[in-house]
């Protein structure tokens, strides 16, 4: 009688352990999937912001009369940045996308510097100058916010992957560890 009860107890304990493990695994796995999806969504937001920023600059540059002939080198920089961005977007490589972001930022700062230097005092009086500057500042703001929310999502993901018991399920289901923040991408100055 005692032996039978003992076996039942052991069986019950095993069932409880399996149940607890199973529930923990499901909850942990779903939480990792959610955080992984959030990172992808935020990455897509950066990609959209990058596209918008570039299209806006490109369109506005051509609309400012008299600027084009003075800014060929900046056009070249922007064209190169655009190609790098399109290549990175096609490959889906986040590091390449971050590098394209950097190229665009450099081209932008060149453009801003060009428009502010003393050699071009009449540029600020051109129709469309303030429109261009406002749209550039706006795009920069959108991109800064997209980068910030992406990094927050990366931090949340990396923390979740390292925490127990998620660390077991992350290894089991092949979740990437230590995903790289936007501002820490190697190779970007």
């Amino acid at each position: 009688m005692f032996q039978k009860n003992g076996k039942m107890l052991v069986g019950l304990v095993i069932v409880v352990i399996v149940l607890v493990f199973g529930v923990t695994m499901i909850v942990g796995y779903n939480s990792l999937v959610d955080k992984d999806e959030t990172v992808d969504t935020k990455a897509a937001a950066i990609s959209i912001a990058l596209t918008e920023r570039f299209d806006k600059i490109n369109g506005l540059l051509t609309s400012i009369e008299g600027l084009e002939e003075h800014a060929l080198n900046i056009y070249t920089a922007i064209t190169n940045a655009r190609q790098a961005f399109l290549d990175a977007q096609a490959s889906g490589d986040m590091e390449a996308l971050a590098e394209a972001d950097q190229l665009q930022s450099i081209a932008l700062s060149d453009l801003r510097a060009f428009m502010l230097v003393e050699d071009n005092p009449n540029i600020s009086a051109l129709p469309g100058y303030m429109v261009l500057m406002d749209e550039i500042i706006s795009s920069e703001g959108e991109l800064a916010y997209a980068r910030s929310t992406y990094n927050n999502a990366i931090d949340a993901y990396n923390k979740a992957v390292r925490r127990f018991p998620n660390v077991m399920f992350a290894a089991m289901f092949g979740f990437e560890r230590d995903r790289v923040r936007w501002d820490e991408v190697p190779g970007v100055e």
Partner: protein
Amino acid sequence: MNKIKIQGVLFLIVLIVAFFVYVFQGNQLRPTREFYVNDYAQALSPAIENVIVEKGVLLYDLYQDVDEVGGAQIVFLTLDKATYGNSSSTELTEIFNKWKIGKNDMGLLYVIFFEEVEYDGYTLMEYDSIQWIIGYQMKIYLSASKIGQIVDATIQVEDSLNMGIAKLLHETLREITTNAYGYEEFRDFDEEAYAYYFDNYTGSSTDAVEMSVFYYLFSPYSSFTDKLFAVIPFLLIMFMGGLFVSFKGGGGSSGGSGSFRRRR
């Protein structure tokens, strides 16, 4: 005796809860009860505060049920440059998103920075710069550069801050109602009427409502029960922020669109 003990315990619980909520909230800026005007720099006159709130409420009430567009909300926040001057556009966007400005992302946040200046022995808050953050959907109808043009023609060139803000609000309303809601009969800005209104406004500042509760709470005229029932909403307003606000955000968010101007 038991009644007093229960009242005492209730009072203590409210205090403890309020304290912990306050501590965990940190130093985040919260919207005021008026929502549309948040004068943290204490630089606006009661008259212009009243205009901002009235127009804001009217705009939202009129258009909040318009299908697919939703109700627009224009919110003003004033900040002291010495404390908040280095705020990035990302931080201001976070404020926008926490306050949930505009229904269906039809929000617009004007942040006006003021600087403390000494003038003839008096300390005044002087307009320094303005920044604007636009909601996701609002930017379809009102771009950062269009707002830039409105700012350049209003607050940037007006000597009177009251008039500058009133014109800025008026022209912003005109753009939103025309572009987003198709309203074509927006009247021109009546400068004389506004000047008369600003000169003759006798209403009190919005802070007065909180002061009256505060005064009542510590006055010898209120009983212990009165104090208890007075202190609960007071603490909720002060520390829990937003539960008893008159107006609130429509649930909108922004992706950081916007630009800025420094005073000329």
